């Protein structure tokens, strides 16, 4: 770790706090959290490969950059329309540009009663107590997460979603996170809170995209609570530019009989790190922690996950699949932690990767820590080339090699994309996979 990499963040933090312009700067709990964040980030610094959880992801390229704090003024957008996964007419849409909520680009007017979508900055004004009770309270084990603390120090805006008890939100809520930097490198640290009240159900789609040539660092922290009997479907597409650094730290608590269903597709980014911690803390809590990644060139995608089975009778399934071209690299480190009295835990983990070039690399590290004796846990991982026989079979029917290859990778990844429960969204994600693959056929 180099001290000089931390220096700009320091100066920026001092400037921002002295100016007193940060949202909620009058709230002592928030100022304390920011202060503690900066102090702890200072102590930890950017992790090096000597830190076990960052063994395969080197941050030198990120440390070399000097990022300027994104302000509301930094984004002059040449956008005709907001990019959308689910279609302009469908669903509800909240748009963030460089981490700041943009009401004029959002369409939340049709949100049904029972769903409250606010920006973090708005919520600090309107419902400071809600945030005081939840922010940094859902997270656990964050002490060793430098990016979490960096986020605490700089958080200004983000998404606050509250689904009230018993509310069923039929249409998906799409949140578009646009990274836009043309002239100078920009960093922003969005802070999100998602609470799915008792017996509620909602679908949240995160859609990360980028425009512009300059580097961006999006350092997201999300805290999620899925209350008893609730169902939260949480799908994410990261399609930022090749100049983007994307770090996403997520802490979710899943309570009794609740279902947290997540899927993350990473196609973009220069370096992406998804680090979800999911704690199953009520009996019959159930989670899906699924994902897919497609990387090429010098892209790097790291999925480091932790699932904690804290009480008896919890269930989790985790599938990550990906394909790598060129010098694309991926990391999958999946830890499954079963507490001593968490009997009858059912946990399955699978990691499969297709290496489409000799220079692509996947590092996989499954980790099972099981302290209960009556459990069913399994894990498997494979990495390899495309199978020759099906490839020849397709080609022998006249299908040219690049198309045959695309069909095979598509079907390989479709298996995990199928896990998305909403059909329209499943198709939207499959289309993204197809798009990515057709780009390599030229």
């Amino acid at each position: 770790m180099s001290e000089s990499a931390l220096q700009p963040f320091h100066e920026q933090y001092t400037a921002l706090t002295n100016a007193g312009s940060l949202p909620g700067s009058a709230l002592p709990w928030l100022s304390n959290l920011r202060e503690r964040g900066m102090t702890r980030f200072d102590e930890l610094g950017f992790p090096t490969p000597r830190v076990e959880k960052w063994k395969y992801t080197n941050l030198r390229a990120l440390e070399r950059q000097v990022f300027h704090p994104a302000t509301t003024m930094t984004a002059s957008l040449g956008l005709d329309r907001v990019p959308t996964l689910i279609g302009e007419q469908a669903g509800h849409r909240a748009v963030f540009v460089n981490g700041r909520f943009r009401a004029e680009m959002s369409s939340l007017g049709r949100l049904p009663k029972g769903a409250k979508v606010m920006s973090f900055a708005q919520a600090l004004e309107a419902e400071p107590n809600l945030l005081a009770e939840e922010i940094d309270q859902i997270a656990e084990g964050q002490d060793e997460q430098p990016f979490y603390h960096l986020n605490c120090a700089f958080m200004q805006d983000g998404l606050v979603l509250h689904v009230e008890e018993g509310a069923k939100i039929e249409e998906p809520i799409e949140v578009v996170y646009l990274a836009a930097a043309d002239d100078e490198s920009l960093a922003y640290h969005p802070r999100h809170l998602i609470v799915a009240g008792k017996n509620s159900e909602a679908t949240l789609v995160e859609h990360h995209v980028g425009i512009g040539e300059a580097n961006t660092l999006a350092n997201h922290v999300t805290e999620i609570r899925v209350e008893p009997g609730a169902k939260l479907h949480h799908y994410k597409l990261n399609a930022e530019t090749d100049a983007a650094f994307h770090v996403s730290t997520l802490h979710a608590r899943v309570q009794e009989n609740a279902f947290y269903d997540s899927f993350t597709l990473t196609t973009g980014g220069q370096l992406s790190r998804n680090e979800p911690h999911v704690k199953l803390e009520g009996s019959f809590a159930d989670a899906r922690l699924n994902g897919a990644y497609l990387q090429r060139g010098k892209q790097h995608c790291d999925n480091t996950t932790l699932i904690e089975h804290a009480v008896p009778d919890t269930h989790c399934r985790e599938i990550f699949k990906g394909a790598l071209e060129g010098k694309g690299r991926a990391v999958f480190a999946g830890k499954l932690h079963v507490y001593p009295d968490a009997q009858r835990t059912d946990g399955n983990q699978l990691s499969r990767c297709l290496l489409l070039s000799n220079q692509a690399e996947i590092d996989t590290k499954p980790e099972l820590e099981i302290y209960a004796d009556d459990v069913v846990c399994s894990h498997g991982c494979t990495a390899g080339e495309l199978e020759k026989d099906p490839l020849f079979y397709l080609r022998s029917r006249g299908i040219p090699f690049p198309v045959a290859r695309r069909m095979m990778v598509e079907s390989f990844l479709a298996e995990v994309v199928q896990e998305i429960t909403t059909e329209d969204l499943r198709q939207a994600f499959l289309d993204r996979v197809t798009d990515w693959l057709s780009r390599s056929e030229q």
Partner: protein
Amino acid sequence: MAMLEIKDLRAEIEGTEILKGLNLSMDPGEVHAIMGPNGSGKSTLAHVLTGRDGYEVTGGDALFQGQSILEMEPEERAAVGLFLAFQYPVEIPGVTMTTFLKEAVNSIRKARGEDELDAMKFTKQLRERCKLLNIPEDMMRRSVNTGFSGGEKKRAEVLQMAALEPKLAVLDETDSGLDIDALKTVADGVNRLRSPERSMLVITHYQRLLNYIVPDHVHVMVKGQIVKSGGKDLAHELEAEGYAQFGEEKAA
């Protein structure tokens, strides 16, 4: 012009010579059978003709309508009109028969400079072929060969032949793993696709299949060469006497 002309073809796998100077000539519309004991090189011939990896051609040539095909990619061979019905059709989970066939038909049309079929035209055509071969349409919604029975796999191969309309079809041990009813069904499908413009090369160990797909010519292949050729009666002769007369063990 001959549909297929194989001249002194030699090929090896990992340094072992399997085809040792093979000669064969087929005219349009003809059905030829190649019979031979295990290990005689029958399947190697099928693979070399369709361009599978792992075989090295060390001599001779194979001309398809006068054009050498040995340097062509497998998809190019399909585009000029060559088709292999696999002995062991490959399962491709996650790709439906419809998607697969549409991609195949249109790839070949594109390679030939023809317009691609739109979804409606393609579906109509596929439906007709299914009907012709008595194949239930719901099979088209299943993943390619995945979970198919032995009979279903072979019928799916025949359907692919019907959809791609090749000029030359090579049937590699199409009878293997089939009971007599399935064999009849598959043979019936093949017979419906016989035409004066289409040649077929039927590779088999047993004479049984040739009761249903009656060939114009029969060749006996032993140790990588054609050692005897004749009419359809040659198959019966072999059934009765086995391959021992050619220095091989009796056919099982």
